[in-house]
C-alpha cells in the first residue's frame, strides 16, 4: 500500500520534471515566434503579447536579397556535398566493411581518427588551400570542404551497416557474372537505404548549420548560405529586434520541418554511430 503511494508520487514527479523541462526548452522558440509579429513599439515590452499580428518584420526579411538567395545557396551547398559523400563513403565502406586486409583496417582508423580534428585548429591552412586552388569565394570550395568534413561519420555509419549484410549476397551476384560496380550499385547500395537516409539526414543538418567554414570561404552576398546571411542581417539591423526575430523564425523553418519528417532516421543514425563508435 505504501509502496503504491510511493509509486504514484514518483510518477507525478516524473511527469512534472519532464513537462517543466520541455517548457524551458520550448519557451525561447515560442517567444521569438510571437515577438516576430510585434511592432517596434511592442518589442520594447517583452512580456506583452502583440495587439494584432504585424507583418512588417517579415517583409524586411523577405525584401532582403541576401537572405532570400541564401536559401537556394544553402540548399545547393548541402545537397551537393551530402550527395558526393553518400556515393564516396558508401562505396569506400563497401571495401572497408568486406575486406579483412590490414590496409583496410588502417584506412578505417585513418578516416575515423579525424573525428577529433577540430576544423578551427586548421583555419589558416584550410583558408590557404582554398585560396591556392582558386576556390576562394566559390560555392564549390565550400562544398568540397563540407563534404570532406562529413567523410569520417559516413565511413563509420556505412561500414558498420555493411558488416551486417550477409556476404552470400555478394557471392551469389559474382557467380551470376555481376561486375564489381554493378554488384555494388544494383545489389548492395539499395540495401543501404536506411543508413543512407540516416547519414544523409545528420550530415545535411551539420552542413546546413555550419557557420565557420562559410565565414572563412565566402564573402560574396549572392553566394552566402543561410547562417552567414542571417549573421549579416542581424548586424545590419543592430537594434531592430523585430526584424531579427523574424529572420530567426524564417531561418528555423527549414531545419524544423526537415526534422519533423526525418526524425526516425535521425535517431537511428545517431544511435548507430554511437553503438559502433
Amino acid at each position: 500500500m505504501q509502496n503504491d503511494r510511493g509509486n504514484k508520487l514518483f510518477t507525478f514527479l516524473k511527469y512534472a520534471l519532464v513537462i517543466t523541462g520541455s517548457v524551458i526548452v520550448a519557451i525561447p522558440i515560442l517567444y521569438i515566434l510571437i515577438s516576430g509579429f510585434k511592432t517596434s513599439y511592442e518589442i520594447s515590452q517583452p512580456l506583452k503579447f502583440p495587439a494584432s499580428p504585424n507583418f512588417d518584420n517579415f517583409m524586411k526579411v523577405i525584401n532582403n536579397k541576401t537572405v532570400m538567395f541564401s536559401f537556394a545557396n544553402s540548399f545547393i551547398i548541402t545537397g551537393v556535398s551530402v550527395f558526393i559523400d553518400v556515393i564516396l563513403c558508401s562505396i569506400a565502406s563497401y571495401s572497408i566493411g568486406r575486406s579483412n586486409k590490414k590496409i583496410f583496417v588502417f584506412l578505417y582508423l585513418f578516416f575515423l581518427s579525424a573525428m577529433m580534428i577540430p576544423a578551427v585548429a586548421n583555419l589558416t591552412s584550410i583558408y590557404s588551400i582554398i585560396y591556392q586552388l582558386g576556390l576562394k569565394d566559390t560555392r564549390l570550395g565550400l562544398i568540397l570542404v563540407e563534404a570532406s568534413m562529413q567523410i569520417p561519420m559516413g565511413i563509420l555509419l556505412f561500414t558498420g551497416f555493411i558488416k551486417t549484410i550477409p556476404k552470400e549476397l555478394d557471392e551469389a551476384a559474382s557467380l551470376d557474372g555481376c561486375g564489381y560496380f554493378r554488384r555494388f550499385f544494383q545489389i548492395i547500395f539499395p540495401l543501404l537505404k536506411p543508413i543512407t537516409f540516416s547519414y544523409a539526414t545528420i550530415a545535411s543538418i551539420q552542413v546546413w548549420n555550419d557557420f565557420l567554414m562559410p565565414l572563412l570561404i565566402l564573402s560574396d552576398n549572392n553566394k552566402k548560405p543561410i547562417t552567414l546571411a542571417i549573421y549579416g542581417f542581424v548586424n545590419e539591423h543592430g537594434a531592430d529586434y523585430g526584424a531579427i526575430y523574424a529572420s530567426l523564425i524564417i531561418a528555423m523553418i527549414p531545419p524544423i520541418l526537415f526534422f519533423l519528417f526525418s526524425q526516425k532516421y535521425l535517431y537511428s543514425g545517431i544511435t548507430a554511430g554511437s553503438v559502433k563508435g
Partner: protein
Amino acid sequence: MLKKLKSETSYQLLVTIPALVLFIAFTYYPLISTLRYSFTNWNGFKSTYDFVGFDNFIKIFKDQDVGSSFYNTIYFAVFSILIGIVLQLGLAVLLYGKFKGKKFFRAIFYMPCVISQLVASLTWLGFFQYSGVINETLVSLGLSVLVHDWIGNPESVKNVLIFINIWQWTGYGMVIYLAGLTAIPLDVYESARIDGANNIQQFFKITLPLIMQAVTINLFIGITGAMKIFDMPFVLTKGGPIGASKMLSMTIYDNAFLYQRFGYSSAIGVVFFLFIATITVVQIVVTRKREVEY
C-alpha cells in the same frame, strides 16, 4: 581463382581513392600544413615567409590573450559537460519505460539540436539582454534587486553561454542514453529485484555500468563540441565584455584574420589540436575500461 581475388582487391582499393583524396585534401593535408606554418612568421598574404623555429610556440605560453581564452574555453567545456551529462542521463531515465507522450517530449527536447548554433544563440538574446524577458520578469515580480546585466557582466556571461549550450545539446545526449537504456535486457533487472536490490542500487550497479558505452560517446561528443565552440560567443558577445567570453577558437581566428599572424595562429591551432587529441584519447581509454558486456 587467385587472379579473381586479386582483381577484387584492386577494385576494393580503387573505390576508396575518391573518398581518400577528398578527405586528405581538406582534412588531413591542412593538419600537416598547419604544422608547417606554425614554424613560420607567415602573414597569410605575402608569398614569402621565414622559418622561425619554436618562436611561435614560446610566444603562446607568454600570451595573456591565449591564456585567458584557454581558461574561458576550459571553464565552458567543464561545466557544459558536467551539468549536461546529469541532465541528459536524468531525462533519459525519466523518459525511459512507460511514459505518455514519450515521442512528443523526445522531439521537443531534441528540437534545439537541429537549429544552427548561430540561430539558437540569437534566440536567447531577447531573454538575456538588459531590457529582455528575464529582467522584465524579475521587475514585474518585484524582484528588481536581482536584475542583472547577464551578457554585459564578465562573470555571468560565461554562465549564459553554458546555459545556452546545455539548452541546445541536452536532447542529443538524451537520445543516445535512451538507446543505451533500451538495449539493456529486462531480465537483468528482474533478477536484481529478486536479490532485493532497490531502485537506486539498480541504477548504480546495473544501469550505469551497462550504459558506459553511451557515456563514452557522449563525453567524446561533449568534449570535442565544447572545446571548439565558436559561433555562439562570436555572434552573441564578440568575446566580450573585456574578453570574458573569448574562446580559444576566436583567438585562433583573430590572430589569423584580424592581426594577420598566420604562422602564430597556426601554432595555437597545433597546440589546441594536440590538447584535444590528448584529452579525448585519455577519456576514451578511461571510460572504455568501465564498459561492461552483457
